[in-house]
């Protein structure tokens, strides 16, 4: 129908040459998820469900960190707001980065700044 013809227009490739159309077609298909999340996608090989279950529960311990606990051993370091402000001003860091840097140096602003300006190579 004419209405449909109009609708089809939007998928018309704009590239002129066959070579360009090929590239455009390949790139437009990159982000299609085809298959990876379909429940009915059949795995290529037989998996022993029992073995998988056991393996999963064995893994549980290793990867069961819950959201919110993600940061490993957050240091309980007190940082002085004035020091944070100093680092933000002098090192042009974000507040979060400045705080992080201070914490990494036990809240010692002098040590933190010295470390920051020391070449790492």
């Amino acid at each position, binding site marked *: 129908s004419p209405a449909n013809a109009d609708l089809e227009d939007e998928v018309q490739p704009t590239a002129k040459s066959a070579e360009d159309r090929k590239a455009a077609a390949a790139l437009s298909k990159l982000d299609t998820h085809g298959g990876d999340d379909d429940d009915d996608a059949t795995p290529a090989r037989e998996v022993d469900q029992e073995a998988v279950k056991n393996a*999963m529960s064995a893994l549980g311990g290793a990867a069961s960190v819950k959201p919110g606990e993600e940061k490993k051993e957050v240091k309980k370091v007190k940082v002085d707001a004035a020091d944070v402000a100093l680092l933000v001003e002098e*090192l042009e860091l974000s507040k979060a980065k400045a705080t992080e840097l201070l914490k990494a140096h036990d809240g010692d*602003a002098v040590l933190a700044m010295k470390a920051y300006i*020391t070449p790492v190579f």
Partner: protein
Amino acid sequence: MPQQQLNTREANLFRTVVRHYEDKQYKRALKAAEQILKKNPKHADTLSMKALVLNAQGKPEEAFSLAKDALTIDMKSPICWHVYGILYRTNKNFDEAIKAYKFALRLEPDSHQIQRDLAVLQIQMRDYQGYVQSRFVMLKARPHMRQNWTALAIAYHLEGNLPQAENILKTYENSVTSAPAKTDLENSEAVLYRNTIIAEMGQTERALEHLETDAKHSLDRLAFMELRAKYLTQLGRKEEAAKAYRALLERNSEHPAYYTALTSVLGIPADDESALKAIYDEYAEKFPRSDAARRLPLDFLTGENFRTAAKSYLNLMFDKGVPSTFANLKHLYSDPQKKATLPTLAEEYLAEHQGGQDGKGQANGDSSKGKGAALFFLAQHYNYYMSRDLAKATEFVERAIELDPQSVDFHMTKARIYKHQGDLAKASATMDYARSLDTKDRYINSKAAKYLLRNNENEKALATMGLFTRAETVGGPIADLTDMQCMWFLTEDGEAWERRGNYGMALKRYHTIFNIFDIWQEDQFDFHTFSLRKGQIRAYIDMVRWIDRLREHPFYFRAALDAVKLYLTMHDTPAGTNGVNGTSGKNANGEDAAERKKALKKAKKEAQKAEREAAEKAAKQDPNKAGAQKGKEVEDLKKKDDDPNGLKLAATTDPLGDSIKFLLPLLQFSPKNIEGQLVGFEVYFRRKKYLLALRCLSAARALDPENTRVQEQAKRLREAVGPTLSSANAKLKEVIESAL
């Protein structure tokens, strides 16, 4: 307040919207959405879907406001939050996108789609811990899919937890009951991936064993052979390693690393020239067309041995007329004896080939061979900075041209000689002549354009490039070159504009390059899922690691350094003043600020003219043109540039502030390049951020303590800091004093 429920018919319609959206049928999706909204104007999920479609059609503002409306109607809809996240994601605000996805996921913890979108963003942002968690959840939901196991292994691998990465891969292998097909590429690659992880853990012995058993039938034969040879070498199993490298040389005799590895495992002493040479000769004989086997010995041979080998190599190359002969040998010039020997051999060749009756050396009439090739070699020799004698270079190139007046290569070298003589106009004219000799060859066309730019002829250079760019691209050659990410042209064009005092155009080009790097960074996005489907995991890991250091690339460095330097110049000589800052008041061409102002004005006029012409052209276009054109117009609209000549960029009141975005990646990704540290100092010094200036200075000092610019900067910093220190923060004072 939760949104109203849809009836069955509308619920079906809603699914249609989603499907059309996924198939990129945006008009159909919109139509279906409108149908639902007609009866249910406050249906939040449909409003969100509509926002998504609008976003895909290039209307991000409308999309965002609609998505916000939808959220106000129903704060508890996972769809609304998910869409909100997608909008942020397509507008490249990844942090906000992650937040929105996490919200959505809290409302609908079992949604595979939301989890997947979150995971992709986490790896894109290199949140490895988050990625591990997401992939763990995804594996738990679908453990029958191998790619979910591989993905979790990748997550652990990138996080640095190698044992766990291997463990995941192994666990999957152990839970599979059927043997893989020998043509199963996903399996072949996963096994090799596991092998590289074992090797990365330093367990070479086990890696070799695993390779020879589990990966024995790997479909990537080259990778298998290379890994095996490497492991055998590392384990000191020299005899087998030698055999392995010989097998690799049989495959590819043009890979220098195989020769060095072979001679090393054979235990041949580095100074035993004849024993080393014998190995290469063996392959030169076996593969008559191999270049490496003949050329590489020239690197280690000395004295008479070198002379003999070089003579036979040169004779062969001259007879064949290989244009890269000089390029392939010039690295030998660091050895004075070799530098002296090579031209005498070329002269000898000329003398030996003087006698031909036709006077042109070669019977077949191809003058790029034989005598012509030797003359060409000598012209390049005398044009090279380590052996430069431009009068002699000219003499040889003229003799070559006399032999073959139509040779593109000869004229190309003649142009280079002019360049080294400092005559950029002649160089450019000569290169353009070379171009005219072969108008179908883009290489010489590119060179001609480059030489035009070196001579500040931007317009002519662009027209030359235009001979090969696509005619149909809206916006002409520059739009095509920008689209196609032609870095060298954009850089050279910017530099030429800068020399001409047109800072707007120069900044425009440097910013374009910056943006292309953003595009490249973004290009990895689709591959986080795509590569799992394709199963080529090792290549994917290589890509991730490369993207992490993307901006160390010299393409970035050069343009960013140009930009920072230009911003410094602009800071030192603000437009409107007349170079009051003394020496720095002049730019490279000696044009002062007044001239810059003039150039700006001219650029503005040109921009207005271009705009007018574009408007006229658009007005002339037939409004009833067929649909195919419409899609293109939408695209062109998206691309419309509101500052094509960089006037806005040049009008900045804070050039130093603007320079920071270019500077930070220079310092972060190429810290060992002293040029970046030197300009970093200049920027921070002017901004009175003395600690940051000191940081650059310390780095520069560590790289090259003798550098006079470093010493001069240190002096300036001491003088500037002295008077201000007494009033400075005590902690700051302590740090600066200890470091100075």
